[in-house]
């Protein structure tokens, strides 16, 4: 009888054979590799994975909010023009002035909430956060049950793998289709057309063109930074997920040196990602995908998803 099956026996006959099995398990503490310290290390790592994943989700939300927002100065200028614009309105019998025109005059650029899109986004974000919370919650009793929970810990590995791989999947989607600040772009186009129409010989002409150039350069940096920070957060969280997965996989044999090694590597990977430009991060995303595709275990996780995606493709949207 192995130690693990002995433990199962104990769980089945908890009370009747308690003393006998307790002695067996007391011996097992000295030979099995699972100590409360190691269990605690897994709890801490799973919680850190949740925290990092939530930062990535925050970045994702911020990125999308920015995609749908106007530049603040554009809104302020439009709002200041309320009184003049009011008298420029030309209502028709088919479309007389109404309540909506007041909000149009006050702020013509900020989008009114779309209930369908807002609900679907809120559900998606809440579901993502819940997934990482459920994973972290799984190990909250591990310290108390470190001797008997080996099988459950091993069974949890594919979940940590999926939750890690999907962060890389999100990063991949952003790298392939970076965020677009549409309203900032439209504002720049409006300014381009205005500057272009300034007649030759006008003293303002060159100065306006120079200012437009500076605005455009600053805008490019803003747009790239939005993609960069989101991808960076996703990869940092994925790095933590990978180390958690390594700890879970080796739960029975995990040594304190291993824990220190994995924790240190997660920290170093996260530090190395900080401040990288989007092109380098793109390389990191591809590297992570390569790593997953070359590892038979990771690949199994992705193959399962390929089936799920095929099913999703057939679902009406």
């Amino acid at each position: 009888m192995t130690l693990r099956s002995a433990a199962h026996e104990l769980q089945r006959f908890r009370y009747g054979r308690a003393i006998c099995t307790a002695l067996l398990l007391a011996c097992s503490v000295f030979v099995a590799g699972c100590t409360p310290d190691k269990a605690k290390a897994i709890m801490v790592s799973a919680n850190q994975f949740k925290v990092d994943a939530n930062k990535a989700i925050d970045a994702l939300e911020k990125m999308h909010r920015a995609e749908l927002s106007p530049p603040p100065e554009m809104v302020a200028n439009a709002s200041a023009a309320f009184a003049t614009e009011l008298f420029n309105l030309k209502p028709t019998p088919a479309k007389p002035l109404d309540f909506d025109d007041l909000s149009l005059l006050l702020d013509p650029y900020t989008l009114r909430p779309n209930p369908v899109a807002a609900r679907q986004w809120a559900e998606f974000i809440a579901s993502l956060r819940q997934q990482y919370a459920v994973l972290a919650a799984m190990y909250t009793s591990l310290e108390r049950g470190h001797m008997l929970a080996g099988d459950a810990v091993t069974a949890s590995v594919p979940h940590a793998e999926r939750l890690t791989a999907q962060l890389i999947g999100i990063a991949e989607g952003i790298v392939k289709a970076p965020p677009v600040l549409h309203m900032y772009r439209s504002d720049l186009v409006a300014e381009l057309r205005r500057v272009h129409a300034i007649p030759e010989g006008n003293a303002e002409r060159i100065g306006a063109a120079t200012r437009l150039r500076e605005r455009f350069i600053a805008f490019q940096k803003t747009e790239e930074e939005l993609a960069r920070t989101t991808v960076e957060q996703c990869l940092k969280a994925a790095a933590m997920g990978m180390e958690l997965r390594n700890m879970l996989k080796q739960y029975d044999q995990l040594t304190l040196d291993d824990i220190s090694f994995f924790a240190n590597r997660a920290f170093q990977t996260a530090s190395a990602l900080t401040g990288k430009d989007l092109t380098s991060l793109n390389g990191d995303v591809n590297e992570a995908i390569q790593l997953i595709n070359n590892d038979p275990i990771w690949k199994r996780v992705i193959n399962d998803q390929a089936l799920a995606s095929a099913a999703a493709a057939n679902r009406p949207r």
Partner: protein
Amino acid sequence: MAEAAVLDRDMLVLRDASNAVTEIDIRYRVGDINVKRELRDAREQAFAAYSLARLALLRDGILTTEKDLEDMRDLKRQIDEAGDTQDLIVAVLQLVQLFVKLGI
């Protein structure tokens, strides 16, 4: 990470939605207040379509299903039970230790 065909399809939908937003938003931005009044609803619909296309692309990267969540909750129950059982063992061991100490 998702199946290539699904990813490509959703990527194209996002690109089309983005182009539609660009087209209408520039007209809206450069137009006067009456043009804005005319285009406001259509512009907001274009942005909503873009928002949903972005969401579809993100969903392509998601691997965890409802079934996975159920499995994780079940594993949590197993680990919690292991904790309860272990607590019981520790209590019994302490009792045995006490008996030995007392010479019973």
